[in-house]
């Protein structure tokens, strides 16, 4: 047996189905009903113990690496209600349990994930740890610059095309790059602290990716974005990228009580009746729209800011994930919109 211990003293026993190794991090919940492979490999979850509210996990096993969102499991630990050890899918290569063990990630079956979710909803997300034999200390991923640990170490070039976009990788999901490549764009993925202006890279637009933790810790990225804004370079941000763009442009961010981690968040386009169902995975949000920007999207449930767009220049960002995986593909048009802006901007 293993034990999940929260910082407020809550203790829950669970049956292990992953690696038998202690872990600690921030405990969060996600309510998506499918896509655990994509979720577990999303670098935004780095440093977090993830509770999945959908009770049956493992149903379709684990596919080949090329379908993942990064090259490894990113969560620190996994908590489910019921684990299915008999997957059925033509793409399945191994069971979820085998995968977790290979990647040394602990996981527990605790049955009452609903209690835990309600607890976090009421008290707010909190630190937690999974213990087996040892008792380890709590670890707060928001106190460090966790982006550094998930960002690429190398500069990677992908695709061919008229336009080149530099992706600042703060923990980018693979599908963001796929979304660009699909649209005939060349991408250069660079580390979070790599200054493309200093290195005289030739490119047409800057993209700031999703990623884990408190945006205010990624100071270097913020200063790079500032340079892009000064140069009026087209810039798009997703998730953490949204928060970093806001900070770089003079806005502010804050920590949500229990975050948005789901595939069913309604986002309303400003001054319209249009609403999109989006995937989200964030604990921080933009609290103050920076000067010169407008609100772009608003959350239909809690009214929080879901995107900002500059009044004059092609600077824009969204809090949700237009690249989906997991989740609905309804906002993939954001990529088209951005690419169109780049082209129109140049014409001017």
């Amino acid at each position, binding site marked *: 047996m293993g034990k999940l211990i929260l910082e407020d003293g809550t203790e829950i026993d669970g049956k292990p189905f992953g690696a038998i190794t202690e872990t600690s991090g921030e405990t969060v*919940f996600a*309510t*998506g*009903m*499918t*896509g655990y*492979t*994509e979720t577990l490999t999303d670098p935004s979850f780095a440093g977090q113990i993830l509770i999945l*509210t*959908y*009770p*049956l996990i493992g*149903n*379709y096993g684990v*596919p080949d690496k*090329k*379908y993942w969102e990064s090259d490894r499991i990113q969560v620190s630990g996994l908590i489910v*209600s*019921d684990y*299915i050890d*008999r*997957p*059925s*899918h*033509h*793409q399945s290569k191994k069971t979820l349990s085998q995968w977790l063990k290979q990647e040394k990630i602990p996981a527990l079956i605790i*049955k*009452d*994930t*609903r*209690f835990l*979710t*309600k607890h976090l*909803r009421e008290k707010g997300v909190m630190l937690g740890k999974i213990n087996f034999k040892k008792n380890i200390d709590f670890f707060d991923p928001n106190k460090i610059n966790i982006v550094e640990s998930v960002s690429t170490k190398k500069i990677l070039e992908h695709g061919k095309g008229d336009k080149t976009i530099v992706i600042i990788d703060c923990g980018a999901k*693979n*599908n963001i790059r*796929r979304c660009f490549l*699909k649209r005939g764009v060349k991408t250069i993925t660079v580390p979070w602290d790599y200054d493309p202006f200093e290195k005289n890279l030739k490119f047409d637009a800057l993209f700031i990716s999703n990623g884990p933790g408190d945006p205010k810790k990624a100071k270097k990225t913020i200063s790079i974005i500032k340079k892009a804004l000064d140069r009026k370079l087209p810039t798009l941000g997703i998730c953490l990228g949204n928060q970093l763009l806001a900070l770089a442009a003079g806005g502010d961010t804050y920590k949500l009580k229990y975050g948005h981690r*789901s*595939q*069913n*968040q*309604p986002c*309303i386009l400003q001054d*319209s*009746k*249009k*609403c999109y*169902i989006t995937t989200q995975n964030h604990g921080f949000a933009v609290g103050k729209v920076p000067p010169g920007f407008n609100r772009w999207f608003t959350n*239909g*449930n*809690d009214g929080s800011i879901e995107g900002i767009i500059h009044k004059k220049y092609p600077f824009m960002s969204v809090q949700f994930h237009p690249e*989906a*995986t*997991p*989740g*609905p*593909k*309804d906002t993939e048009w954001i990529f088209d919109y951005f690419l169109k802006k780049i082209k129109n901007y140049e014409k001017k």
Partner: protein
Amino acid sequence: MKKNKRIKHVLILGSGALKIGEAGEFDYSGSQAIKALKEEGIRTILVNPNIATIQTSKELADEVYFLPVTPEFVEKIIEKEKPDGILLSFGGQTALNCGIALQKTGILKKYNVQILGTPISAIMLTEDRNKFANHLHKINIPTPESRAARSIDNAIKIAKKIGYPVMVRAGFALGGQGSGVVYDEKNLIKTAQHALAFAPQILIEKYLHHFKEIEYEVVRDKYDNCITVCNMENMDPLGIHTGESIVVAPSQTLNNQEYHELRRASIEIVRSLGIVGECNVQFALNPRPQRSRFERWQNEQLLDYFVIEVNARLSRSSALASKATGYPLAYIAAKLGIGYGLTEIKNKVTGATSACFEPALDYVVTKIPRWDMEKFKGADKKLGSSMKSVGEVMGIGRTFEESYQKAIRMLDMNYEGAVSENENKKTSEILEGVKNPTPQRMFDIASALKKGFSVKEVHKLSGVDPWFLHRIKNITNHEDELSKNKILDRNKLLELKQLGFSDKRIGNIIGKKGLEIRKIRKAFKIIPSVLQIDTLASEFPAITNYLYMTYNANHSDIKPSRKNSVIVLGSGPYHIGSSVEFDWCSVNTVMNLKKHKKQSIIINCNPETVSTDYDISDKLYFEELTFEKIADIYEYENPDGVIVSVGGQTPNNRAKALHKYGAKILGTNPVDIDRAEDRNKFSSLLDKLKIKQPAWNAFSDLENAEKFAEKVGYPVLIRPSFVLSGSAMNICFDKKDLKTYLKEAASVSKKYPVTVSKFFEQAKEIELDGIAQNGSIKASVISEHIEYAGVHSGDASIVLPADRVNTKTKNEMHKISEKLAKELNITGPFNIQFLAKDNEVFIIEINLRASRTFPFIAKVTGINLIELFVNSLYKKNIKYIKTPKLKSTAIKVAQFSFTRLAGAQPMLGVEMASTGEVACFGADREEAFLKGIIATGGKIPKKGIFISLGGDKKKQDLLRSVLKLKNFGVTLFATEKTAKFLNQNGLKVKSLYKIHEKKSPNILDNFRNKKVDLVINIVDKNIKKEINDDHAIRRMASDNNILILTKIKKAELFINSITDKKFDDLMIKSWSEYI
């Protein structure tokens, strides 16, 4: 701008009687639509002859027309009411078809009626298979290829183009005759030859062997916002109608890519059609796609899928999706129809978040259909592409096993879970059942796995995804282990409960009683948690109490109600004999409890009901109506008591055990219920009170049964006293019959004796429904059957007022009821069935619960017996209410679904076979009855009437009526003897050869060529024939959708109606104008 301000009066079309394929789900959707419109101050006018529905209550629609939902009637209603708008998508296919006809004939335009919601053009497009396929191809959505062939050569060419294997379907063939899968040209020729022999054209389709079937429920508003409220996966592979399939929500075996690619496709379809409201999209998905063909992008391989069907209206699936997620689809669809955007509506469950979202479930639901094939003699039990089930249940749990085993118990057919040991089948029979499904397939699968067949083997035979089979195997493994070890420690018991095992089943395995297991379980402190369905997987708190129980949690979301709360047991699944009328009774009970400031707690498990809407009661437990679950809820909630008498026989059956367990039953004491239900006890009670009953006795051997029959005189009625799935009631006219039917009842043993009672021919059957308080009757209403006794009261045509029952008989009935009410100390609803012959009154039976006639009585006489019942619980000495004199006549007419059931015998008898009912008003019997017959699908004959009367007596009996057809103006046909008889009596009748005679002019040809639109086929059971053609005649008529009348009294009334009334004589009057 929110709603369309022009719209002030809206006409809503209902779906009419419950029938196979169109059932209670449309009461749910219509009721929600009416509520949504009423909130906006819109006046609602409802057309629905289904009198047992909630939507046709005073509390809902402003004006109700109990008239057929046909273009002819609706046109007249439009002319009279002049509505601004019309809703077509809340009354199933009936409403949609009617709406399309009104559009095509220009009626809607003529009266300037705006169709609200989805444009009619979109609906018409989805109804035309070819045009719709072309439309989908234009937006790159694949449909399975299908083409019509008129010759063998043609068929070969098409099959080559589509690629083998192909499915050959005989176009216009009856009951799927001649259809089949062929794998090569040789077999194609063989099958096509056969099929073309009895159909002018055949369809060659791409055969999607064992594809998965997946459904999405999509909602779109006028701002083009689209959401998918739910996706569902059929456990049964493609080829079995989704209404016949076990369905889970959300999908279990789809990964993110599949889930969202199909979601995207469904939204694209809905957008392309311009739907405003709700739409259902069904897909076939290949579980084993060929990579080379479908993998394009490194990560974005296209799926191998096809669109199978699109329903641009609320459907059975959308009702299920509503209940599965808590998202009120019909309510929202109605709001969108009058101009709202999704972002302008709140999620009613949280009260805080937006309705523009997609529910996240933290549980799994399993829907299982309920079949009643035993009730239809001769029906083909194989499941396939057409619907045969009559109802459904939905189990909710946090493991698949839990929700699946719950659902099986919810069927209320004495199954304790996934494994049924009721049948001793041979291995070959089990495998046959796995391969070619019948309603028993779920048990065949479990049996096969239990017998050691591998998941792979069972998968190959059944096409059920291995994922589900592994889960079922998990159940059988646990059973096997328990029966081997028989060790039940706390962990083991908890584990079994988490897998959805009932106490009783666990007890069966280890040789203990269910109650003993319950004791052990409670000593271990293993009790279920009560969780809320909140649409957002607890991301936001819910303000509604939509609840279920699970052992896969250890906290409860809600607090017990305790004092001032009452549990009301609902009806469970709809099936023959228990239908929407009991939902009406349950909902009315709840509404009246509110008046007495009582908190109501509903328990029900039927997703097609209004009682399972979370805004009806204070708490809704979507749970099993088993003793175990009711007792669990009772112990958790600790209410004032339980009401068992408004949900039909299922809850009534729980009274005894609950009472014994110490639960407080509100109303008549269960000990007295037992005295009325136990035939022996009741019989001696009647003797004591000197009340007459047909002579009867119970027999365990043929000899004594024969002696008894000789003594009382044939015919006699026999029925087994212990019936598993309700069948084998028969009337015996002679010794031979008695012998045959006794054998049929099979288990003639001391343990299960057979009851034999005197049967009266040509006797009147009369019912008395009432309510009593402390043994004194406070209201009672007498209603009269049109048919003679011998037709089940659920199938009979019932008239109010009962003006052909004489005062003497009525007085006698009242006297008897008063005696019985006093003796049984009744507090609550009751129903007594009487026989009257030659001024003598006999009692057939008494039920100490609400009957199916309650809503009919309430709506015709204004006496709501349910209201009086609830009053009787909380007010001392309630006032006696006299039945008012009625201004009009109302007749309740049964709806049969024989056309849906290939092979079934379309005949009325002592066993109930109807699936639903309507009731219509009129100035007299003829008007009310004719409306009722039209409302159940009949027509005033315009072409020809076929008459076949068995025996001299029956010929004489009906002669007077038949002679009225002399100047009716349609051709009369008859069998040889009947024709001769009628010709002799001065009626011009064409004689037709019998089907088996194969000579022309034959009955068959005249039916097929649509020369006949009414069949009167009266059989004399006394006459034994060498070759019985009657069954073939009736089946043929049924297959050709021709109205068949098999009972003298009913035929008489119908002939009177059509000769007396013309269509224009049928008054277009609303409910309020009749009462």
